[in-house]
């Protein structure tokens, strides 16, 4: 085995051949491998998007691809809490280990399969879309300027292909559960196509055996065609030791709607890029985020909304809480193309600093070429409001319980809005677990506004 840095066209060609990949796929990997050879790993001194997170410190790329054999079963996923269940795809240590269809999905013709198999069995769709959102083309908005994305383009292993055919309104969620038990590098890939006027709910779940040192470099491409609706949740519930790089890129067509919730609480370092290209008029996206960082964790969250078409709307809201020596970066990017008249965009970030030593950075970044739009942004970093704490305590609720209620309530707003089956309960359980593990006696409150004006 070779480490990631040494991946080259020759080694990939033999892997493609051994796996029986179709020629077009093998060629795409070759092209990506050549780009990979020409690129360098991100440099936080020179790369604008990496300025806030030192790549060489937080990510170790001198790793071998994790061995796909062995591997235990992942813990219970979100679907366990969904009445009637859903479609469950499981990827363990870079290999797709199981696909459990759901009768409703199967009857509606929903395709859920290994991406390699799909490259042959569903060649038309997969060839048309795989790598299209990552690869920069004329007028396109690729992400392959970043070597971590090219790496996945070239060498992805465990992959899944999902297709919800046009006009199929699938109410049961589809969950892709990526689980890591083996040390090393993992390169999962997801391609989902939601046909025109279809409806789907997709969960990307991430767990690992606590303490296993791994790099997970993940790419999900999501095509949401005209009038379709996608509800997406990505849950980063990693154990310690995981470094996660994720690009989750949705292409949103005419009058299509996407609601996306990024829930990040686990892992050592998570750099998440929830990206949305609004390519059809009237497209609408609501990217939501929740993050809770504790001692030693570093989360870099970079939602990116590109308004390419007119009259599309986007409204980003990320809320986080930090404790211990932890660090979060929110860089909210919005691009409005010169043709995107009538764009409505807003983005907001709020961070709650629970204890001393945590640091939250927020940078809204707007690049606007069109004047006929409405755009807003805001960010706030603060502490728990002492007035909230006092009010609950004045009703007999002890300080620790009151703090738990306030932090949970802070996130409930987002979970209630997302209203994703199974996700709210799972997220609340994780939030409560994280708060229970925290040293609440160290929580600082903001008592600046403790007295109302004019009181005596």
């Amino acid at each position, binding site marked *: 085995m070779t480490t990631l840095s040494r991946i080259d066209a020759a080694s990939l060609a033999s892997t493609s051949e051994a796996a029986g990949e179709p020629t077009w796929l093998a060629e795409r990997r070759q092209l990506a491998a050549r780009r990979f050879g020409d690129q360098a790993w991100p440099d936080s001194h020179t790369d604008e998007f990496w300025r806030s997170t030192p790549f060489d410190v937080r990510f170790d790329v001198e790793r071998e691809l994790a061995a796909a054999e062995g591997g235990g079963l992942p813990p219970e996923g979100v679907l366990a809490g969904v009445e009637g269940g859903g479609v469950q795809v499981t990827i363990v240590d870079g290999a797709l280990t199981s696909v459990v269809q759901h009768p409703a999905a199967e009857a509606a013709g929903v395709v859920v399969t290994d991406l390699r198999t799909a490259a042959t069995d569903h060649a038309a769709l997969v060839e048309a879309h795989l790598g299209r959102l990552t690869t920069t083309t004329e007028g396109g908005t690729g992400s392959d300027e970043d070597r971590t994305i090219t790496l996945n383009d070239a060498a992805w292993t465990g992959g899944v292909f999902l297709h919800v055919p046009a006009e199929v309104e699938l109410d049961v969620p589809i969950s892709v559960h990526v689980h890591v038990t083996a040390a090393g590098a993992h390169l999962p890939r997801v391609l989902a196509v939601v046909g025109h006027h279809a409806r789907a709910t997709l969960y990307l779940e991430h767990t690992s055996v606590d303490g296993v040192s791994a790099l997970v470099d993940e790419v999900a491409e999501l095509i949401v065609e005209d009038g379709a609706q996608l509800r997406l949740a990505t849950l980063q519930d990693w154990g310690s030791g995981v470094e996660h790089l994720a690009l989750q890129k949705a292409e949103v067509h005419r009058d299509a709607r996407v609601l996306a919730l990024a829930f990040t609480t686990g892992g050592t370092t998570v750099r998440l890029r929830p990206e949305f290209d609004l390519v059809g008029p009237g497209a609408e996206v609501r990217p939501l985020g929740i993050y809770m960082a504790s001692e030693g964790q570093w989360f870099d969250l970079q939602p990116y909304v590109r308004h390419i078409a007119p009259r599309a709307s986007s409204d980003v809201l990320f809320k986080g809480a930090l404790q211990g020596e932890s660090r979060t970066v929110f860089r909210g990017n919005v691009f409005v193309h010169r043709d995107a008249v009538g764009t409505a965009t807003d983005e907001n970030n709020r961070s709650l600093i629970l204890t001393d030593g945590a640091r939250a950075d927020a940078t809204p970044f707007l690049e606007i070429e069109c004047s006929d739009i409405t755009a807003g942004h805001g960010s706030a970093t603060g502490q728990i409001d002492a007035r909230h704490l006092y009010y609950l305590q*004045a*009703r007999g*609720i002890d300080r620790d319980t009151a703090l738990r*209620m306030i932090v949970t309530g802070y996130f409930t*707003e987002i979970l209630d809005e997302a209203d994703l089956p199974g996700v709210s309960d799972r997220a609340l359980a994780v939030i409560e677990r994280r708060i229970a593990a925290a040293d609440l006696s160290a929580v600082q409150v903001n008592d600046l506004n403790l007295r109302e004006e004019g*009181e005596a």
Partner: protein
Amino acid sequence: MADLEIRDLTVEADGNEILRGVTLDLDRGRTIALMGPNGSGKSTLAYAIAGHPAYEITGGTMTWEGTELNELSPDERARLGVFLAMQYPTEIPGVSVTNFLRTSLNAVRGEDVPVREFMTGLKEEMAALEVDQSFLQRSVNEGFSGGEKKRFEILQMAMLKPALAVLDETDSGLDVDALRIVSEGVDRLRSPELGVLIITHYTRILRYIRPDEVHVMFEGRIAASGGPELADELEAEGYERLKSSV
């Protein structure tokens, strides 16, 4: 010894002395009105009793049934039966009214109240206070009108059944109908077990809740004390006479 016994209490906020030696007794079963002009220190006394962290006790004592309140956190006081209906109830995003009330009731009672019993009691009290059922799904005080907030304070009082209720300008900002509903709500809760301290600038709430005693605060001290007739005098003559007599 009175159930609530306040002796020579001095209190500071932001380094300013606001209470300059307050002495007051209140027994369960009795209702006291504490009146006074704005800035006289009425609300400060309310907050001091309820343990608000912005108010520092610098002297004197304050006991409830023999326990020194000043040594207790706000939640410990509440669990002893002290309740403050706040002048400016706080909005707490994401914490539902139901969850809040249930957690609070369990804390004050020191045991988990069965859900069914809790909901039955809550719905009865809500009906009595003409509080809409849709409140249950809302976050605590969030988006409530001024009148709804005050009603919600009294709903909490009804649920928690305190031994000492301090109503801090509960009547302020209420129109006549809301004042009647809130006042009748409080009046209904009066019992030999409950001591009530009504803090108000105006006498109108006292038409619904007849106090046993009236005390008037001025510049951080009790400047006059008397029966209900004192309130009527103040209504007729205002606080001006008081100022000139001090």
